[in-house]
């Protein structure tokens, strides 16, 4: 038979190969499609959280009014009056005829705006008596209107805002008193109460997640590397070590919520309660980190053991052959060669821990945290939330503005993860020996 002709067998074989390749291509195309949809959705829904509508208000800080406000029970209501008065005056000066009644002010201004003003006054007492131009957050409805989420039709049943208020907002835009800008508060701020999504931020939970990741790293890396080295290089191969190995693999498959309830029982109830360790309290990132460590340990141990196994026996022989002790052989030669693999396993474990919500729910790391964390010790022990827990909290709230924030939180979570990965890649580069 001529070489120019395909035999029926070859034809079949080539067809099978082409078919297999097309399956592979289809799988990759589908994966890419989902990735694009996912990223598109996240960015489309979440980018709004990074933009905030603000009213530019030149506030006249009348000394007497401020003194009166500070002396009253509801300190912010005095400040509110200051803002409304200043805004009204500015509107008249700019030629807007509509009146800013208290209902309109409530509809347009964030309920957190008076506090923003008060914090400014407390921080800059020298400004009292003069006029300062502040950018005050608009309400979530106004913010939604500016971003197209809220329309005149969608507010037909809304008691908080009316079409007339939106007309006023249009006029404010016309004279430049109302504008959109980058929302640093979302990156650096704390959670806010249900009614003030415009004041909420992820900053607190970023710190919480950072603290937990540091705990996980500090706990998991030494323990799992030590355990892996012992099991892989030193432990006798007997029934007991086999039993331990099987159970490590099993632990990696245990649902994370089980580790959450274990952490609740072991750290908070027993450690914090029965023994009385001060730092082991509910909602503390230290405990959260320990709970996530329980979950992450098996993953890192398995990866580390695989990395150690992948180091050729000839390296150990070479070291032992020149009279190195077993430990010297491991630490001088085997471990450095296994390091890139260990780093990869660690980052996979940390990434899983970063995104884990279930254990945090059980140890109370879904706290509403309004105050800033200041000191170094409180960084690990003060009540806090993790990023996924914060996103979870926001996603359960009703207002459309919270929905946007939850998506925005996911963007920050992904950025955090990307940063972690970059650090890991840089470290791996450093450890990697290309020869």
């Amino acid at each position, binding site marked *: 038979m001529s070489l120019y002709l395909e035999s029926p067998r070859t034809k079949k074989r080539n067809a099978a190969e082409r078919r297999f390749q097309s399956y592979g291509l289809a799988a990759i195309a589908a994966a890419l499609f989902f990735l694009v949809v996912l990223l598109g959705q996240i960015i489309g829904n979440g980018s709004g959280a990074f933009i905030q509508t603000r009213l530019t208000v030149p506030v006249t800080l009348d000394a007497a009014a401020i003194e009166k406000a500070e002396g009253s029970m509801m300190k912010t209501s005095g400040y509110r009056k200051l803002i409304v008065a200043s805004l009204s005056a500015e509107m008249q000066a700019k030629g807007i005829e509509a009146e800013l009644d208290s209902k309109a002010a409530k509809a347009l201004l964030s309920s957190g705006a008076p506090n923003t003003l008060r914090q400014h006054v407390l921080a800059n007492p020298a400004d009292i008596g003069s006029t300062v131009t502040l950018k005050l957050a608009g309400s979530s409805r106004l913010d939604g209107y500016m971003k197209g989420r809220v329309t005149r039709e969608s507010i037909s049943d809304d008691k908080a805002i009316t079409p007339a208020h939106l007309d006023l907002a249009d006029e404010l835009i016309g004279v430049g008193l109302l504008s959109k800008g980058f929302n640093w508060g979302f990156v650096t701020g704390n959670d806010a109460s249900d009614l003030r999504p415009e004041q909420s931020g992820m900053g607190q939970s970023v710190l919480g997640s950072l603290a937990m990741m540091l705990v996980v790293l500090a706990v998991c890396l030494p323990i799992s590397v030590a355990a892996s080295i012992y099991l892989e290089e030193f432990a*006798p*191969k007997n029934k007991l070590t086999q039993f331990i190995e099987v159970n490590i693999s099993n632990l990696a498959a245990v649902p994370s919520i089980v580790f959450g309830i274990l952490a609740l029982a072991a750290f908070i109830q027993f450690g914090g309660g029965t023994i009385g360790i001060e730092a082991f309290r509910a909602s503390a990132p230290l405990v959260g980190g320990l709970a996530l460590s329980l979950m992450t340990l098996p993953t890192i141990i398995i990866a580390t053991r695989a990395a150690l196994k992948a180091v*050729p026996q*000839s*390296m*150990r*022989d*070479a*070291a*032992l*052959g*020149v*009279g*190195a*002790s077993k430990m*010297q052989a491991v630490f*001088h*030669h085997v471990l450095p*060669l296994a390091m890139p693999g260990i780093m990869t396993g660690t980052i996979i474990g940390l990434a899983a821990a970063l995104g884990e919500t279930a254990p945090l729910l059980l140890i109370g790391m879904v706290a509403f945290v309004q105050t800033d964390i200041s000191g170094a010790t409180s960084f690990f022990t003060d009540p806090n939330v993790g990023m996924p827990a914060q996103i979870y909290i926001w996603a359960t709230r009703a207002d459309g503005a919270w929905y946007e924030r939850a998506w925005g939180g996911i963007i920050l979570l992904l950025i955090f993860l990307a940063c972690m990965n970059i650090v890991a890649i840089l470290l791996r580069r450093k450890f990697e*020996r290309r*020869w």
Partner: protein
Amino acid sequence: MFDQPSNLAPQVETPVTTDHKITAENVNVHYGDTHAIKDVNVKIDDKTVTAFIGPSGCGKSTFLRCLNRMNDTIDICRVSGLIELDGEDINHAKVDPVQLRAKVGMVFQKPNPFPKSIFDNVAYGPRIHGQAANKAELDEIVEKSLRSAALWKEVKDRLHAPGTGLSGGQQQRLCIARAVATAPEVLLMDEPCSALDPIATAQVEELIDELRENFSVVIVTHSMQQAARVSQKTAFFHLGELVEFGETGQIFTNPHDSRTESYITGRIG
């Protein structure tokens, strides 16, 4: 099958000399249920090249690894019998294998340089044994070792280049330099030329001949020509037994055991 019990043969054939470096008596090795080495008795002389030959799986490498207790690293391996280095039992409870291996160096079948620089490869042994007081001494040891491995001229300008970047033959000579750097008394070589081309093999063989001036060398080889070229004593292993041990010339020209004759004439193995 054969008319004389084979394990008696070596005792009969071993020439009587007083200069034994290593003495092995009734050595048995078991891998799990496999009896890999059966009652081996051998006396290895100082400043002599001793070759272990035999077909694959005959136990010659296993026996070689007994001499520096490398078999300790294999869990299922059990060694019994007496092996003495300068009259001291190397399997004695008080003996630390690390100290033994500093005295009995080893070169493996496949070149296995560390993924470090040429200098660090050679300097590793002296460093961990504290054999150099300062940098100058270490430099001297490295140079001496590389010279004795006939590698110095080729690498002296790139001591800090990676050892794994050398050619196969150079890598094996680097491993020899690494092994001699700790100033061992015995050098074990497990088929050191099996991965090398004829030119590199010739270089390593030449090297082995030079090393004989200072060390007792034990070499496992598949090549009978190589055994004939480099060794003074030859031991023939077959199915875990030491069949015959004697002067290389006698083994190759006038073997006493019919199995040895069959092997060296190419009928078994």
